[in-house]
């Protein structure tokens, strides 16, 4: 049950290449679980930008001095995030959340590996906390293009049983991709499950490496979203259901967390011919 809250920005902090924004948004923290996301209005009342921007929830505090707060971490990507990066404490921010299906937690204290790419590590850190509270062993692999795009290094280091880091340019950790180190981590930690959040190509590689070992894997995907609440059907991707059939599934309400092996990675951006209701005749544009 998401809420629409007229929030107020409490703080904006630079964190490497990102910004971490904390918003007073009473009611949302209590409902939030790791993997949930927010949708934020951008541009002000006379903006030409109509659509909300989606961000994974990083941290929540049920009750601060100012009421419950939510924190998210974002990169400036286009005009909406550019506007967001100009906000200051006390500015208002209209927030809808928590949205989506969060990560499902293991019933038992198993060995868990978390894999985060870029700002994708943000939702994994509260997940790590929840897992530790359940007595799980938590190994973390973080990757990014460059050191300043690696989010959560210190926090992960403090929390994890082991931490492996890669960057594309070698500016911190290993020179390479998370998929270069993940197999060794999985094997060494005897991982029972994997959680991943980051770019689609990374999620796909993680899914494959987990599948090779028969390890279940949950991934949080990122698809372009117009509404974030399940009413527009823009955010779909081909996912195999329990019945073995492929459907174009809304990642905002049925995701963003999916079982990695259920996502048809090769076919993302297409409608596979065996999808339920695949259009074979010429279709409408609406």
């Amino acid at each position: 049950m998401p809420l629409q809250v007229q929030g107020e920005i409490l703080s904006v902090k630079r964190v490497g290449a990102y910004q971490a924004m904390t918003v007073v948004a009473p009611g949302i923290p209590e409902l939030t679980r790791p993997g949930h996301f927010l949708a934020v209005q951008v541009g002000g009342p006379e903006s030409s930008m109509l659509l909300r921007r989606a961000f994974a929830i990083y941290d929540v505090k049920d009750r601060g001095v100012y009421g419950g707060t939510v924190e998210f971490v974002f990169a400036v990507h286009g005009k909406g995030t550019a506007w967001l990066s100009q906000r200051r404490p006390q500015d208002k921010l209209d927030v809808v959340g928590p949205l989506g299906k969060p990560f499902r937690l293991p019933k038992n204290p198993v060995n868990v590996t978390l894999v985060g790419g870029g700002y994708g590590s943000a939702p994994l850190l509260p997940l790590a906390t929840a897992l530790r509270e359940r007595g799980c062993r938590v190994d973390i692999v973080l990757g990014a293009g460059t050191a300043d795009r690696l989010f959560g290094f210190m926090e992960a280091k403090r929390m994890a049983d082991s931490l492996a880091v890669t960057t594309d340019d070698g500016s911190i950790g290993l020179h390479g991709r998370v998929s270069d180190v993940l197999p060794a981590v999985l094997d060494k930690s005897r991982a029972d499950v994997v959680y991943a959040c980051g770019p689609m190509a990374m999620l796909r590689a993680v899914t494959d490496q987990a599948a090779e070992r028969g390890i279940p894997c949950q991934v949080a995907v990122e698809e372009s979203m117009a509404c974030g609440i399940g009413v527009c059907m823009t955010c779909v991707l081909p996912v195999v259901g329990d019945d073995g059939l492929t459907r174009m599934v809304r990642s905002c309400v049925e995701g963003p967390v999916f079982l990695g092996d259920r996502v048809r990675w090769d076919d993302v951006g297409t409608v596979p011919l065996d999808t339920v209701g695949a259009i074979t005749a010429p279709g409408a544009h609406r």
Partner: protein
Amino acid sequence: MTDLTTKLAGVTFPNPVFTASGCAAAGRELDQFFDVTRIGGVVTKSIMLDARSGRATPRMAETPSGMLNSIGLQGPGIDQFLEKDLAWLADRGARAVVSIAGGSVDDYAKLAQRLRGHPAVSMVEVNISCPNVEDRGQVFACDPRASSGVVQAVRQNTAAGTPVFAKLSPDVTDITTIAKACVDAGADGLSVINTLLGMVIDTTTMRPALAGITGGLSGPAIRPVAVRCVWQVHAALPDVPILGMGGIRTGLDALEFLLAGASAVSVGTTVFGDPTAPVRVLAELEHALAERGIARLADVIGLAHRPPVPSVPESPDPVGDEPVVDLRRSFDDTFEETS
């Protein structure tokens, strides 16, 4: 307090604010944000006979004060729709306006039959902005004959008490021709307007931004086109009720459509940025009407078409007829030239 009830072809709705087809699914998700029984009605996503996957992604692009979509009518098909979506709306006590879409006249006829007499169906909206598979994919709504065929089939297969509204496309040379064809074929009212055909090219990939190449443009960007269409259709067919839509964001926007001739309005794209928009628009509209001292919503419908009440006497003001005293000479003597 203003009487907000509105009548659409014999059916009375408690107020004139509806959702728009394809912008509210079947109401369930929005019911998390506001009580969907509070608005005039829920217009459901156009449903087809069979389940349909829709198009490939990307399916949307944000544009200045608007967006493009090319969903391709993804949906579960009429059976599942009746079983799950309409059943939920019925349970919930919401007024459902069911939008239907097909690729042939026969599709539409069958859809109407499936809906016939269903107690939860307050109204049927016929989305004719669909390619006619029997006519090289020519969109029904772009041709009066094709539109007429679809509307007639739906009307014939719909219970007498259930209004059938045909939803018009603005992408035509003369929208009133299509409007008349639909009404002649039995449409009880008209939904005005569907999206405009548009396109965005991604300047990074240098290719169309949407997988479907073109898409439908919606949002406040198109509001002036929508208001013009409502105005033209109401002028041509003053007795035909109109469900107006296209870029409504506020109660004053809704009022604009009513003044142009709509009897009710749909809030579409705005919901994506503001999930509580329909109830907000309703509250703002109610406030705007009260402020203007309007007792009954019905009194503003089409009001902008009536000649204005003259605020000055119509007879020419005598001052205007007096010769203009030319002070130019004294002026040039008096003042410097400006640089």
